[in-house]
Every structure is written in C-alpha cells, then in structure tokens.
C-alpha cells in the first residue's frame, strides 16, 4: 500500500517536472554566478528579492506581469509601455512568466561590472518597440510622448494629451535626436548608429546600471555605522 502511494508520488512529481524545474528553489548559484557578472553571494541576495516579488500575487516561485508591475510601480494598475518592453526582454522563454534564471541573467546586464556592449545591446532592443532591428522616428516620438504622459498631477488625460500633442506638432526633441542619430540618413537608427550615439552621450545609458546589484557599500554621507540588508531596507544609526 505504502509502495503504491510512493509510486504515485514519484509519477506525480515527474509529470510536473517541466514547471517544477522552473519554480524550484535556488538550485545552483555557482552556475549562475559563473555565467553572469554576479558573485555567488549576489546571486543569493538576488534570490531573496526574487522570492519576495514572485510571491506577491501568486506564490508559485515565478514572476508574472502583474507581480512585475507591482514591484516596479507599487501598484498593479499602472500600464506602461516601457515596463512591458522590459518584461518582454527579461522573458527570454516567451512564456509570460519569469523564472529566477531569466531574472538573474537579465539583471546581470544592469550590474555595474557588466560589459558596456551588453548594456548598449539591451537598451537598443528596449527602444526597438516593434522589434524590427532598428528604431524609427515614429517610435522615438511615441516614447517621448509616453514619458511626458506619465502622470502624477491631477490632470485629466485629455489635458495632458492636448499639451503634448501641441508641443510635438512642432519639431521637438524626437526629431532633433533622430536627426543626430541617423547618420546614414536612411530613416532608421540601426544598432551601429545607436552605439555611436550612446558612446557620444554616455548618460543615455545611466538607467542601464543599478548600483544596488553591487554589494559594495557607498561611504559618502552615511553616518559611520549603518546596517544594510542585501537589497533590503537600509537602516541608519543616527550620530
């Protein structure tokens, strides 16, 4: 009787293996550390963060779009063109959910020690909204409008839109920047042109680096004693 149950258990686990593998605990931090810019302790700290984010809505060890939005905006009601692009780029398996491996590999690009070329590639794909392998003028304009439209003030959508539409009817920065970037004058910004633009304006990549991924602590303007939890709350002991 007991053997029967055990047999059933093994069969059951094997059936679920596909999804089970993805949502299992931190299996091999050394492997991930070898294949990313992270150290083993950084991987472990990242896993703690992953657990927190992935259990917010459904506790299944996976991050879905809603949990991702929640983590980024502290609300799941915010639609964002950019958050969608980021999620899609993280989701290399294209199954609408992020396992820890996808999460860690994607965030590795944002580490201060990651190669600049990786950051350049990632940001290019990010802004290539239609994923055509190049960035069009219209996409640049769309992104400028989307950024300006992100609301905080109590302006109604129509008011915001009318302000932005009026502003962007005339030549605006989307046009100037596009002209500057499109050195081949073929109406597209390809990867090479993006690379030159970014190397000329390094600040364009500043959001591609997250200092918190690096576990070194900044000393500047922090009282001499502070306790920092990995990717958690920082508490200060006031002098």
């Amino acid at each position: 009787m007991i053997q029967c149950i055990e047999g059933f258990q093994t069969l059951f686990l094997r059936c679920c293996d596909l999804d089970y593998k993805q949502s299992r605990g931190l299996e091999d931090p050394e492997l991930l550390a070898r294949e990313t810019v992270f150290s083993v302790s950084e991987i472990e700290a990242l896993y703690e963060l992953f657990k927190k984010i992935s259990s917010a809505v459904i506790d299944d060890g996976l991050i879905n779009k809603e949990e991702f939005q929640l983590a980024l905006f502290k609300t799941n009601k915010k639609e964002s063109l950019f958050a969608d692009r980021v999620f899609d780029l993280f989701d290399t398996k294209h199954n609408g959910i992020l396992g820890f491996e996808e999460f860690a590999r994607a965030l590795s690009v944002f580490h201060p020690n990651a190669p600049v070329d990786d950051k350049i590639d990632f940001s290019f794909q990010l802004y290539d909204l239609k994923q055509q392998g190049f960035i069009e003028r219209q996409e640049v304009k769309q992104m400028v409008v989307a950024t300006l439209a992100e609301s905080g003030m109590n302006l109604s959508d129509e008011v915001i839109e009318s302000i932005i539409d009026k502003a962007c009817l005339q030549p605006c920065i989307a046009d100037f920047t596009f002209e500057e970037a499109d050195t081949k004058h073929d109406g597209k910004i390809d990867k090479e042109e993006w690379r030159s633009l970014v190397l000329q304006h390094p600040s364009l990549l500043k959001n591609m680096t997250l200092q918190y991924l690096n576990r070194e602590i900044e000393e500047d303007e922090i009282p001499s004693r502070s306790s920092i939890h990995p990717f958690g709350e920082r508490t200060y002991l006031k002098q």
Partner: protein
Amino acid sequence: MQSPVYYALVNPNLSILMNMCFIFQRITIPEIMKDEWFKKNYKPPVFYEKEDADLDDVQALFKDSEEYRVTEKKEEQQPTAMNAFELISMSRGLKLDNLFDVEQGFKRETRFTSKCPANEIISKIVKAAKPLGFDIHKKNYKMRLENVKAGRKGNLNVATEIFQVAPSLHMVEVRKAKGDTLEFHMFCKNLSSSLEDVVWKTEEDMQETK
C-alpha cells in the same frame, strides 16, 4: 602568523598596522585614522566635488579675457534641445532601482518640466533663490546659484540648466555642484514651493502613480 619578508623592510609601525588589516578582526577606517603611523603628516581632506558640467561659461563671467568676451556676444537664441533618449530614460518604467526597496538617500539632482517660456523660468528661479540667500551667476540658459553663507560642507552651489523639449515645453535640471546634499534637498523643497506656477511636472510626479 608569519609576516611576509618584505614587511621587515618597512617601518615597523606600518607593518603592525598592516597586519591588523589582515587578521580576523579587521580594523575599521576610524581606528586606522587614530593610529600613530597614519596621523603622521596627515592633512584632513578638503571637500570639493567633481563638477561634471562645462564650467567655461561660468568662468567666462569671472575672467575678463578678450577670448571669452567674443563668445559672449553670440547669445544663444534657444535653450539646448535635450536628447530624446535622455528624457525617455527618466520614465518610471525604466527605473529598475524601484525593484529594490532600498532607502535611496537624498538625491544630488532633480528635474521638472515647465510650460513657461525659458526666460520666464529663469526670472522666476532668480526671484525664488535670492531671498534664500543665493548669489546668481547667469549665462544663456545656465545658472550658478551660490549660497552666501557657508553650510556643513562649504557654500552650497547649485547649477541649473534649461533644456528644450518642444517650443512650448522645457525641462529644468537642478543639480548640486558643491556642498552638503541635505542642504541641497532643503533648497529644492523651498524652491519648488516658490515655483508652483512654473512647474508642470516634477520628476517625483513622473515617478508616482495616479
């Protein structure tokens, strides 16, 4: 534990100090600073920040050389156009820092957008900063505000610059150039309350949700 041979060639006080850095109980920076060896000929640092911006225009105001005067005659008609991707990168959806719930500390720079014409923005900033005790140095659409009174880390120096997003929309960058970051934070708070009618959206607004 045996010290490596080369320690013997060095000042014995230094060698003891270095050993303390390698043993289990790691010595802390404040303890190092108290050590005799360290204190010898030690001069405490003077705080001055590395200013990234091009200081040519500010220096032009102070240096009365012919060379700079010639450049000044050609006044910029329009504020510099901001790079579109610079603006886009300020979007909240691209600020993955928010995934980490870490206390970010006080920022060293902030931005806001305005629908007012650039000249009006400048005069409003000047009007707001003067009563707070700041000297104004202006060139084209860049300004340097210097607190006459010294603060915790010297005189607070704030650099502002106006960028054009569209003919009727501007982005103003307010950046700490020198001094204490907390004082800068307080300055920004005061400034924003005086600039209520100029500001369309602050960077914080853009970060917040409805």
